[in-house]
């Protein structure tokens, strides 16, 4: 006998095959219990199309990366494809500077990729520039160049220097004067970035964490700080609780993790006005987790579109 234990269970085979008529869990839906509401005729794509959207966190890439991901459409055409499919009217794109040392030559090159995509699809993209606080003078100059190219604020700034590093102070002061959003990559001490995790997860030591955002938000209460992707780098409950009392920190919902209750929890702790819809390229999760929340349509519309657009309005960069 090939299978140990077969004798003990073989008698069940006939009765437990799922195709057998005797199975109690059938698919007959005619005798519903009245304790529960009727099953709705839910039309998901109608819900998707109901809401205008600005995606506050998107990236464009060079061909080598899109090949790795299997994006047959390449970039930025993949981003355009999802935007049209899911009624994302504007996507705030950048090319995050995930190289060391993040020199001026490198960030200019990365920004040129973004500018190229903006020029190609001006109706679909808003551009965010990347800089590096370690190169303060060149970063200030790059802001001017990118403004001239029509960019609206920073893209996702990366891990070369923490957001609250003094080298960023004059840069942040300039961005405040320009009423631009300061969007920073972030992780969490409870998660991939952190000291409590004892695993070598290859995270850069200068990655900004929630405590760094609180520090800079207190120093510059007039700054507009976008905490990147609560669906990516760390414990979103920790992050939302950390920012409850700092009205100039906005959380953005991007990242591939679409935990149930993330959005309801964020609204409960941060409020419905300080949350930006973002995908970080995870478009399905970005939209799915907001639509699956218990928010009203008005609250969803705020997160999908109005909150980000209202901040753009401060600098006259709104989209309508």
């Amino acid at each position: 006998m090939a299978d140990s234990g077969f004798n003990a269970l073989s008698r069940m085979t006939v009765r437990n095959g799922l195709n057998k008529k005797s199975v109690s869990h059938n698919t007959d839906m005619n005798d519903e219990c009245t304790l529960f509401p009727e099953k709705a005729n839910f039309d998901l794509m109608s819900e998707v199309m109901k809401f205008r959207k600005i995606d506050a966190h998107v990236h464009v890439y060079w061909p080598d990366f899109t090949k790795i991901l299997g994006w047959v459409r390449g970039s930025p055409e993949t981003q355009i494809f999802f935007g049209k499919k899911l009624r994302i009217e504007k996507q705030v794109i950048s090319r995050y500077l995930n190289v060391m040392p993040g020199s001026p030559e490198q960030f200019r090159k990365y920004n040129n990729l973004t500018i190229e995509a903006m020029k190609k699809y001006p109706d679909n993209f808003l551009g965010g520039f990347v800089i590096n606080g370690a190169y303060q003078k060149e970063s200030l100059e790059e802001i001017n160049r990118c403004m001239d190219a029509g960019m609206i604020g920073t893209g996702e700034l990366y891990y070369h220097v923490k957001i609250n590093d003094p080298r960023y102070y004059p840069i942040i002061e300039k961005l405040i004067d320009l009423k631009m959003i300061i969007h920073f990559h972030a992780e969490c001490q409870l998660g991939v970035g952190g000291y409590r995790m004892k695993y070598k997860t290859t995270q850069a030591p200068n990655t900004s964490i929630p405590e760094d955002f609180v520090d800079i938000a207190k120093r510059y209460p007039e700054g507009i700080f976008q905490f990147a992707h609560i669906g990516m780098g760390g414990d979103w409950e920790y992050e939302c609780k950390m920012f409850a009392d700092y009205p100039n920190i906005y959380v953005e919902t991007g990242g591939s993790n679409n935990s149930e209750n993330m959005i309801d929890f964020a609204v409960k702790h941060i409020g419905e006005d300080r949350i930006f819809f973002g995908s970080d390229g995870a478009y399905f999760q970005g939209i799915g987790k907001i639509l699956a929340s218990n928010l009203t349509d008005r609250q969803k519309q705020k997160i999908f579109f109005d909150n980000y657009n209202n901040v753009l309005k401060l600098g006259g960069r709104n989209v309508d």
Partner: protein
Amino acid sequence: MWIDINAYVGRWPFMQFQYNTCAALLNRMNKFGVDISVISNLNGIFYKNTQSANKELYEELQSLGRNNKRFIPFAVINPTYAGWKNDLKECLEKFGMKGIRLYPKYHDYAITDPSLIELVKMARTLDIPVTFNYRIVDSRQRSWMDIDLVATSAKPEWTLRNIIPIIKAVPDAKYMIVNVCNSLEINPEDEEIFNNANVLMDTSGRSFNTIGIFLQEKANITRLAYGTHSPILDYLTGMLRIESLDSDEASENTKDLLRSGNAKRFLEL
């Protein structure tokens, strides 16, 4: 018709979940138009004696009255724990369970453990599916008390390569692989055995963000079915991956297979 092949009830020790009872899940199903859910009890991941969790699920389903017909319960079995064969027998004969959920990482046995191979062979004989997952929660947001498989670390989360050995050991069993959130790549020498295996994956995992490309391979059309990974992941993302497919990515017939057709065929409903 929608059949969710990957839902749970029960608790997670490190985080409060919403919608983690049969009643709450049923409300979720009704709200979003889902007909049937394949469910198991998360508590079985943490109880040493998993049968307690299976019994809990059975009793909870009983309390739903006729609404229990909306659920297809799967048993959580640890094949390295005493009495598992009797537990499985009880789950199938008394509790009406229709498949098996397996957690080698949490239950601390290897994918090639002889007891696992024995169980999968038994499932093959009984013509019931066995289910593996890539992960339950995103390790980047895990508790410090959770298992120590961490993305981007030297001991990373699972990919399809980690599941292949059991498929090689018992190639003719029925496999469900859920929350496919990392690589689907396998070694070239394993491709034939995987391609010939009876496998059904669900749409809850992030690897299917490129679902349109995945479906270009004709054989893949019958290997994917709607799944939520509820209540861990949000209820709609797995559905959105299907519903947003354009006509040049998937025909209406293909979408129907993903919504429920593949699940019906695989589960012999």
